[in-house]
């Protein structure tokens, strides 16, 4: 068989590399500004963060070259081996790692700190691509789903044990990859629904949620039966049943309804009526509504029980604060407020490079890592922040183009893995600094201070670009 030789360098997608280098360069300028001790020019101290970041950028360029030197097939054949190694390292960090800021996430080697959970992301994507392209694999089969779940959840659970909630959340973004490969859209909607319901359970009083579930069920019935009359009859009957239940309890049993019972009383009549409808009509579509409703109620009740009965008050508090559901003016809340002030005070053009005053070190503690976007906002203004967002949107869209032009499923899945992880970091990090999302401490890829994150994303991107450069050689 003739194998046409391709010049790898010419096939590298230079557009994405240039976009990436611009992000890294601009990121470094902002890290410098957030960490200078002198105003502007003057001494340049390599032991400061901007100095170290420069070293890490240099090292990541070398890493990139190394990734390109290896044959593209290496990443395909050794996908599981690399995954296995990183899983062992994640176990190792739990046993022998250094605890910093309450999480055992770090190896400290000769003064340098390495965070294995960052490196687990590209290798998990490799293993996922390997699994999903293996013989006989199908997302529609239960075993296929189970294997996929295991590959993703194994590193996620190990990282949750550290505990590093932020990095764990990122692993759930691999579900986007499954969606691209044919995972049911309805399932995606259901999962999104469950996540919404989870937050709702923690934020809203339980009877209200049960009432909402009742309402949604009625709406679903209306949509399915396409009869306003039948729906109204159902609602009125349910209301009447609720009234009777309430009255019997209150006046005959002489007991006072608890809030929980009130909630249950709103759900039970409609559940019973739906059951009757299902039995009489024998139609699967009504059964689906009933099943959905039951699952939702069970979910709400169990989340509520777990949260309030099993967890201790301080643990509840921590979850509420981490999820951004509870105001914590002294800690997280204060940071977000300061972050918004810093960004907001930048105005249209910003205060000028190195002229930020709000981004004082002691106002926003993670100034050069998780909250680096504040510095952009304050010193470069709306122009700068929009520029950064356009860079990321551009890079992500370019990645979609690249992923879609792959001839092998393996490369495409790996590409979408990168897109999913990059997108999630972008979404959560910037969303949190501008107060749209809860504070989950993960870095802005290629931009934030930190060697592990930079290296891991470099490896991630470059493996994909390496696969892309050889796309014409790689067989399906």
């Amino acid at each position, binding site marked *: 068989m003739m194998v046409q030789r391709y010049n790898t360098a010419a096939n590298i997608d230079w557009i994405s590399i240039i976009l990436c280098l611009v992000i890294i360069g601009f990121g470094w300028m902002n890290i410098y500004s957030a960490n200078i*001790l002198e105003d502007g020019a003057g001494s340049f101290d390599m032991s400061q963060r901007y100095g170290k970041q420069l070293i890490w950028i240099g090292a990541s360029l070398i890493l990139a070259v190394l990734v390109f030197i290896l044959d593209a097939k290496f990443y395909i054949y050794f996908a599981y081996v690399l995954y296995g190694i990183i899983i062992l390292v994640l176990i190792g960090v739990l046993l022998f790692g250094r605890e910093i800021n309450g999480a055992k996430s770090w190896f400290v080697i000769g003064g340098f700190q390495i965070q294995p959970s960052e490196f687990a992301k590209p290798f998990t994507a490799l293993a996922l691509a390997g699994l999903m392209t293996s013989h006989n694999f199908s997302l529609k089969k239960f075993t296929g789903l189970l294997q996929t779940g295991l590959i993703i959840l194994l590193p996620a659970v190990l990282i949750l044990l550290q505990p590093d909630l932020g990095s764990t959340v990122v692993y759930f973004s691999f579900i986007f990859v499954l969606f691209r490969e044919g995972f049911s859209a309805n399932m995606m909607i259901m999962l999104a629904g469950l996540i919404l319901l989870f937050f709702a359970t923690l934020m809203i009083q339980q009877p209200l949620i049960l009432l909402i579930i009742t309402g949604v069920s009625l709406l679903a019935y209306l949509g399915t039966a396409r009869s306003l009359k039948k729906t109204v009859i159902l609602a009125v009957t349910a209301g009447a049943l609720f009234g009777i239940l309430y009255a019997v309890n209150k006046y005959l049993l002489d007991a006072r309804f608890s809030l929980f019972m009130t909630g249950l009383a709103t759900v039970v009549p409609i559940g019973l009526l739906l059951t009757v409808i299902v039995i009489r009509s024998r139609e699967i579509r009504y059964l689906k509504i009933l099943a959905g409703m039951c699952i939702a109620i069970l979910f709400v009740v169990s989340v509520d029980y777990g949260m309030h009965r099993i967890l201790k008050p301080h643990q509840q508090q921590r979850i509420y604060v981490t999820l951004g559901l509870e105001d914590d003016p*002294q800690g997280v809340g204060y940071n977000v407020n300061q972050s918004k*002030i810093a960004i907001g005070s930048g105005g249209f053009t910003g205060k000028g490079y190195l002229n930020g*005053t709000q981004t004082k070190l*002691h106002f926003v503690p993670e100034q050069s890592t998780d909250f680096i976007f504040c510095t952009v906002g304050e010193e470069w203004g709306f122009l700068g922040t929009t520029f950064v*967002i356009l860079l990321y949107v551009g890079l992500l869209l370019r990645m*979609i183009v690249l*992923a879609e032009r792959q001839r092998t499923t393996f490369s495409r899945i790996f590409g979408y893995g990168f897109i999913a992880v990059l*997108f999630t970091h972008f979404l959560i990090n910037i969303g949190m600094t501008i107060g749209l999302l809860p504070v989950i401490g993960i870095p802005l890829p290629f931009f934030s201070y930190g060697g592990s994150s930079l290296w891991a994303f470099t490896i991630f991107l470059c493996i994909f670009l390496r696969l892309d450069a050889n796309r014409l050689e790689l067989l399906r």
Partner: protein
Amino acid sequence: MNPYRDRRYVFGVAIILVGLVFIGRLFQIQILDKSYAQYALSNAQSVSVIYPARGLIFDRTGEIMVYNQAAYDVMVVPLLLEPFDTTELCRILSISRQSVIEKLRSARSYSYRVPSIFMKQLDYEHASLLQEKLYQYPGFYVQTRTLRKYTRPIAPHALGYVGEVDQQVLDNDPYYQLGDYIGVSGIEKAYENYLRGRKGKEVFLKDVHNQTIESYQEGRYDVPVEVGKNLTITLDSDLQEYGEELMKPYVGSIVALEPATGEVLALVSAPSYPPDLLVGRNLSRRFGELVADTLKPLFNRALMAQYPPGSTFKTLMALIGLQEQVISVSTSFHCYYGFYAGGIHTACHLHDSPLNLIEAVQNSCNTYFINVLKHILQDAKYENPAAAYDNWRRHLLSFGFTRPLGIELTNELKGNIPGSDYFNNLYGTGRWNYLTIRSLAIGQGELLITPVQMANLAATIANRGYYIKPHLVKKIEGVDLIDPEYTERHYTTIDSVNYLPVVDGMDLVVNGGKGSTARNAKVPGIVVCGKTGTAENPHGNDHSIFIAFAPKEDPKIAIAVYVENQGFGATYAAPIASLMIEKYLTGEVKRTWYEQWVMQKITSE
């Protein structure tokens, strides 16, 4: 073609949508909402940190030992500076123009944004003068701090000192900011988390004239200050002061414990220094001077000096011999000026012969206890001397000699009792016996024990069989129980009944007739039990050791006294222990001639 290819549009749309939402939100907070820019124009908030007063330290009688005095630091944030009247500032602070320029330069080189200390520990008059004119000097503010003051110049080793945090602490504990104070050693370090309290924070809004106008968002972001917790420690100030006084002419240490509780009554390490030496602006210079001192005043001898126990160790030999049933109270051995066997001679002094166990303790007979070691190691219960030796060592471990006892002060060292493998390596397995290691029987050789462990031995004998870890904490304000570690009884492997003859022997050491080795430790009206010791010192004169407890029944104090390079234990250590016991049990020392003898005798030497 891939059936799900169209799903790529879902991704594209989602990414563009998120980008648009972000840009929209940024447009809102950066351009539409002017309030954020307003904050910036007006210098935004000013955060003022409120430092809590550090907890006070009381002694066991409730007498205050350590308290606070206010001092004022002038702080500067170079970024917020505006041109100001330098001459006026120099006048207010009484400093030169040159030094203002220098201080500002060093503040800038540290950080533009983080406050640095412009002038440390200003007095009240200067500080209040500056406070009035502060509005003319944006970028400057006055920070109130507290300095430690001491009612008596005593107990520096136990109390420790407070100093500025170092880089290592700053890296590891986000609570501390540069320039904060922290307990660096002693009690100040051990109970830092209680003593320090919690810093408070107030956030204000300021107008363009740098005047505070209002509390930011009605104090939503304020943190209330929590004053440090007061601490009561177990030291007795009078006894501590007296001990330091007695030890002034000497190098050495005194540790006094309350046997029933393990509470440390006095912890003396000589030479000492007044604790207020390490307070305030001159701390680092004076610290350097103390480090350079050849007598090492910073070295806490009570916890860190390791000496051979000398003859005090014979009490342990007696206890183990009785427990192992290789001797009984009535067992007697002959001694004619020493021990002779296998061509080896270990000298002993002149005393009656033969002696039984109690008399042997009273007379501190070397021969007797070498014989005890012989019987222990040749005990037929064990297959060889090494096994018997390890069993002997096991008893000693139960007294806590081979590990730090666990007092709160972090610099405590452990003692040393070599295992049988040590001698196996040294002499070869099976090639050593009781004769080879006979010096252990009289507390010399490889044995090393610290003064606090020795005092703990005295307390264990006083308790007839158990000890409670020596500790300095008595009560923490607002905390009901102290660490259960400090109430737990540690029983030794020796039965209570076996302590009785040893106690009787120690009684005779002090209160016996002919042959008693420490009759000068007697206290009128109180039955003191003691044992002398002399630690052989290869570098110079031997060290004088005395351990004791009193009264014999229901002991209230157990004590170990070490006097370096002063020869026999009876000569100097015993009188000092005697005076300490008298001071503690009767409240005053009536034998003033005796204390003058102790203090003068040596100074003339």
